[in-house]
C-alpha cells in the first residue's frame, strides 16, 4: 500500500495480532465491519482526553475546539466525496439512518400517490425496507431492477419497463452478497434523463475505492464510518443542496431549529436542519482520522491489493469440490458468497471460527436476494487491504476440513 507491505500495514491494527480459539485471527468479515487502525483509536482517545465538549453551543475554549474539529471533519468528508459544499454533508448514525432520512423527508415532500420507487433485486434490507415504509405511507409502489444470471443488473430490462411514474431510484453501489459493482454513473444518467432522482448506497463501495459524487452525478449517497476503519455510530448522507433545501426536517430537537415558539419553529440552515440533538462528535473525529488513514495508504493501492486478494480467493475456492460461488460479475468488490455442498452456512461459519477464521453466514440482510438464489443463506468471506494470501490459504484448507467433518 503505497510503499508499505501488507505486513507493515497490519501493524497499524492492534486487533490483528490476537488469537481466536488458539489460532491467529483471520478476519474475513470486512463487509460487516472493518477493524480499526491505531490512528483512529488515538484520535478518539485524544478527543476525549484533551478536547471533549458539546458542539455549536459552548462559548468556552473546549467547546470552540470541539466545534472546530467537528466541522473540520465535515470538510474532510466533503473533499473526500468531491461534494461541492459542506452544506451537502449530513452526519448520521450510519447508512441505514441516512437512507431512512431520505425516504422520510424526501419521500414526504416529493412522493405522490401512484408514484414508483425503483430499487434492485440485490438491495440490503436497509435500502429496501425504508422504501417499503415510504411507499405504504404515500400510496406508491416499489419496482425492482432484475438481475442477470451473473449477478449484474439487467439495465435493458429496467429501461424497457421504466414508466414516467418512477420518481426515485435507490440502488447499492456494490452488492454485499454478490460483490457486483454497479455502474451507478450510467444508471444515474438514465434516471436523470427520465426525471428521477438517484440514491446510491455506498456502504460497500466507499471503503474500497474512490467514490466521487460529482463524477457519478447521484443526488444522494449514504455510507457508514465503521466499514471504512472508522468507529460505529457515524455515517454520512451526501445530498444535493437544492434537494436538501426543499426537504422538510426529519427529526426535531436541538440544533436543527432556528427559532422556537410555543406552537411552531423555524429551521436551521443546511446541514444542521437534519442534525437534531448532540451529534456523534467522537464519531466524526474518528471518521476523519479514518479518511486520513486511507488516503495515506492511497486508494489505488488499496483497490489493487483487494482485487488481487479477491482474484486469488476465487481461484482457491474454485478448487474445492462442491463449492458454489454466487455472483460472477466482471467488475466485483472484495466479497465472495458461497455454499459448500448441502452444508448449512452456519455450520460452515462455526467450523471456520474454530480455526480462527471469521466469516459471515446467513442471509446478509438480503432475504429477497436469497429467495432469488433459492438458498436459505450463504457463507461470505469479505476482504480488506490488511488481509493476506496466507489467510485465504487457511480459508481454503479449513473449508476442506469442514467438508470432511460434516460429510
Amino acid at each position, binding site marked *: 500500500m503505497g510503499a508499505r507491505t501488507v505486513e507493515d500495514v497490519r501493524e497499524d491494527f492492534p486487533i490483528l495480532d490476537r488469537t481466536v*480459539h488458539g489460532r491467529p485471527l483471520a478476519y474475513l468479515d470486512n463487509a460487516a465491519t472493518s477493524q480499526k487502525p491505531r490512528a483512529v483509536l488515538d484520535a478518539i482517545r485524544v478527543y476525549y482526553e484533551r478536547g471533549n465538549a458539546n458542539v455549536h453551543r459552548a462559548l468556552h475554549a473546549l467547546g470552540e475546539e470541539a466545534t472546530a474539529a467537528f466541522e473540520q471533519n465535515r470538510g474532510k468528508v466533503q473533499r473526500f466525496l468531491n461534494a461541492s459544499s459542506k452544506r451537502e454533508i449530513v452526519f448520521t448514525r450510519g447508512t441505514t439512518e441516512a437512507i431512512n432520512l431520505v425516504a422520510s423527508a424526501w419521500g414526504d415532500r416529493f412522493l405522490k400517490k401512484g408514484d414508483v420507487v425503483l430499487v434492485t433485486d440485490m438491495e440490503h434490507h436497509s435500502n429496501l425496507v425504508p422504501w417499503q415504509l415510504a411507499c405504504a405511507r404515500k400510496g406508491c409502489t416499489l419496482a425492482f431492477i432484475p438481475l442477470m444470471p451473473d449477478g449484474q443488473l439487467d439495465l435493458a430490462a429496467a429501461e424497457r419497463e421504466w414508466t414516467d411514474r418512477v420518481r426515485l431510484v435507490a440502488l447499492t453501489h456494490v452488492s454485499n452478497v454478490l460483490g457486483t459493482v454497479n455502474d451507478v454513473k450510467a444508471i444515474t444518467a438514465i434516471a436523470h434523463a427520465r426525471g428521477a432522482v438517484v440514491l446510491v448506497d455506498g456502504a460497500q463501495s466507499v471503503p474500497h475505492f474512490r467514490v466521487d459524487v460529482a463524477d457519478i452525478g447521484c443526488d444522494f449517497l449514504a455510507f457508514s464510518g465503521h466499514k471504512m476503519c472508522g468507529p460505529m455510530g457515524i455515517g454520512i448522507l451526501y445530498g444535493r443542496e437544492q434537494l436538501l433545501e426543499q426537504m422538510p426536517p426529519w427529526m426535531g430537537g436541538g440544533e436543527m431549529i432556528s427559532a422556537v415558539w410555543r406552537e411552531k419553529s423555524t429551521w436551521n440552515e443546511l446541514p444542521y436542519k437534519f442534525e437534531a440533538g448532540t451529534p456523534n462528535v467522537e464519531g466524526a473525529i474518528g471518521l476523519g482520522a479514518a479518511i486520513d488513514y486511507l488516503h495515506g495508504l492511497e486508494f489505488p493501492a488499496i483497490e489493487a491489493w483487494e482485487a488481487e486478494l479477491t482474484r486469488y480467493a476465487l481461484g482457491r475456492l474454485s478448487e474445492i469440490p462442491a463449492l458454489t460461488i454466487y455472483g460472477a460479475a466482471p467488475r466485483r468488490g472484495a466479497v465472495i458468497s458461497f455454499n459448500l455442498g448441502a*452444508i*448449512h*452456512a*452456519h*455450520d460452515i461459519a*462455526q*467450523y471456520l*471460527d*474454530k480455526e480462527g477464521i471469521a466469516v459471515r*453466514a*446467513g*442471509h446478509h440482510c438480503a*432475504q*429477497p436476494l*436469497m*429467495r432469488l438464489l433459492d*438458498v*436459505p*443463506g450463504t457463507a461470505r468471506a469479505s476482504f480488506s487491504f490488511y488481509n493476506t494470501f496466507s489467510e485465504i490459504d487457511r480459508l481454503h484448507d479449513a473449508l476442506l476440513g469442514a467438508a470432511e*467433518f*460434516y*460429510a
Partner: protein
Amino acid sequence: MNAFDDLYQEIVLDHYRSPRNKARLDDVPESMVHENPSCGDSIKLEVVVNDDGKLQGVRFDGRGCAISTASASLMTEKLKGLTVVEARAYAEQFIRSLRGDAPVEALDDMGDLAAFKGVAQFPVRVKCATLAWHALLLSLPKAGVPKAAEAAPGTPRGLDGR
C-alpha cells in the same frame, strides 16, 4: 472438550447425518411452516395423536443446519408415547433451559437431549436448537384435545408469499 466439540457432539452429528423420522410432508400446509428468519431455516411437522391422547408419531420436513436438524430428529424420538400435555411441557422445559430461563443442567434429565447443553454457550445457535420445538408448540393440538385438531397458524410469510 473445547466449545466447538461441545456444540457438535457425536450424537448431534449422528442425528444430523442420519436424521430420524424425516420425510417429505407435502400434505402439511405451507401455513404450518415454522421459520427462523435470521438464518433462513424452515421446518414443518406432522404430529399424529392417538385416541388416548398420546403422540403416536412425529415426523419433520425442512432445511436447516446440523444443530437444528439433529434437534428435530432427537425430538421426534423423544416425544413418542407422551401425552399432548407432557409433550408441551417437555418442549417448554427444553426451550427454557437453552434460553437460560432455567438451569441448563435440567437437560441432564432429558436423556440424549443433554447433548445440546453445549449450545447454551452459543447464543446465536440457541435459535437453531429450539426451532423444531417451537414448531412443535405450534403444531400440537390444543392441550387436552385428542386427535390432531387444527393447530395455530404458522409465522407470517415473506413478501413473496413463499
